[in-house]
């Protein structure tokens, strides 16, 4: 384990995987403050990748660069490349609106649209893209709500306000809303931090079902959550990617001393 010992450890290279997203030298700043200092990372397809690290390490910024949400903040800039299926999402010819549809996001605090019904919330993304037919909308709504394991709980009250549900249900509603536009990737920014343990467990189960159809990236500061749901984990610190490995290996035997110190709680 570097650099404390000079021990020769057996080969630690990652087994090969097919990537969905690759970042090359990705840098992100708020004005003159550089928060991401050049990230080279490959995100495996149809797996759950956890992005972990202490506050201020850049993990949320990293994820918000992947759906081009970062640049919406005044003064925020991005450098470098982020390839989605091999094509740079920051290329001049790319429309950010299109990227944001392909890379969906679920936020820390559930944010359903309170002035819309549950049904309208779920299909909000569809109506944006011009989908009108009642039948199509209803079918998609049911499909998405089922995928989010929310259908049975709300099928009789689709007309109720989106804000009338419990916290956990609201979050699943937001997941259904994100899934309705059929993204390739689902970004989840600490999706369970505002939820109680039961709701959290439901979301975690949901994630392990969803990964078969989507590539999921989850930002979490909860290491137990990462070890429960994530196939791969990346550890960020002060804007750099310190280590990236299969979750089990990273948690049992991290390569970097910094990782070891963070996950065993010896920081600070």
């Amino acid at each position: 384990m570097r650099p404390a010992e000079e021990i020769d450890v057996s080969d630690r290279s990652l087994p090969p995987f097919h990537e969905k997203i690759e970042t090359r030298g990705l840098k992100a700043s708020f004005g003159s403050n550089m928060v991401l200092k050049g990230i080279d990372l490959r995100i495996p397809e149809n797996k759950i990748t956890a992005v972990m690290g202490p506050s201020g390490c850049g993990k949320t910024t990293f994820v918000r660069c992947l759906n081009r949400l970062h640049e919406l903040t005044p003064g925020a800039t991005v450098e470098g490349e982020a390839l989605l299926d091999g094509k740079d999402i920051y290329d001049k010819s790319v429309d950010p609106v299109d990227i944001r549809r392909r890379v969906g996001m679920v936020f820390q605090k559930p944010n359903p649209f309170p002035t819309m019904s549950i049904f309208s919330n779920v299909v909000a993304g569809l109506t944006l893209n011009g989908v009108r037919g009642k039948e199509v909308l209803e079918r998609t709504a049911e499909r998405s709500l089922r995928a989010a394991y929310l259908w049975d709980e709300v099928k009789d009250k689709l007309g109720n306000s989106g804000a009338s549900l419990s916290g956990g249900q609201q979050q699943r509603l937001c997941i259904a809303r994100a899934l309705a536009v059929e993204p390739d990737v689902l970004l989840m920014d600490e999706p369970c931090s505002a939820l109680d343990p039961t709701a959290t467990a439901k979301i975690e189960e949901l994630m392990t079902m969803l990964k078969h159809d989507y590539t999921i990236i989850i930002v979490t500061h909860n290491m137990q959550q990462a070890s429960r749901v994530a196939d791969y984990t990346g550890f960020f610190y002060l804007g750099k990617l310190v280590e990236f490995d299969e979750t089990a290996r990273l948690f049992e035997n991290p390569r970097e001393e910094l990782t070891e110190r963070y996950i065993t709680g010896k920081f600070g």
Partner: protein
Amino acid sequence: MPRLMDIGLEQINGLLLEMASLSQQAVSASIDAYIKGGKAEGVKDMSHRIHALHRQVSDLSMEMIARYQPVASDLRFLKSSVEISYGFFRYGRYALDITEVLDMFGDLSKCDRNSVVDTARKTQEMIRMSVDAFAKRDVEMARKIPSMDDAVDSSYRENLRRTIQGKGDVKCSLSATLILRYLERIADHATYIGEMVEYIATGVEPN
């Protein structure tokens, strides 16, 4: 600032060191009794105490894992502590077995005990190395143990061959065989403890 977990980890470490010391003493006492004759002092009590400590270590490790969900070196330490504790427990157990052989066979002063004594010294050295390696988390020392294991193994097998061939006094050869067997088992455990020490430090799985 120490973590909550550190209290428990230190407790386990302390228990293991106590077991190490006790088991070392037990083995030395039984070997001394073999060489000089006479009763082995307190080996039985020590063995029982080590057994009790082993159960404590086992329970405590499980509790730590359940409560703190440890990772990395903490996790490896806790996994290993049960194995290492078992190793020390076996040291003590075999020391007791050796004294039981001495009780059963009585006076062995007429036997040629040189090879056994020689092997015993090597085994004691391996015990000392395993304890040291564990106490200091010294991976270099841990890696030296397996080569000594070969010497102990071959000594045991050589004696076995001679016993099969029927050479020498039955009492002598049988007692020697049994004691060598126990020494060989102790040596195996010492080797395993060494591998556990390496695992804690580097994460390399034991063979």
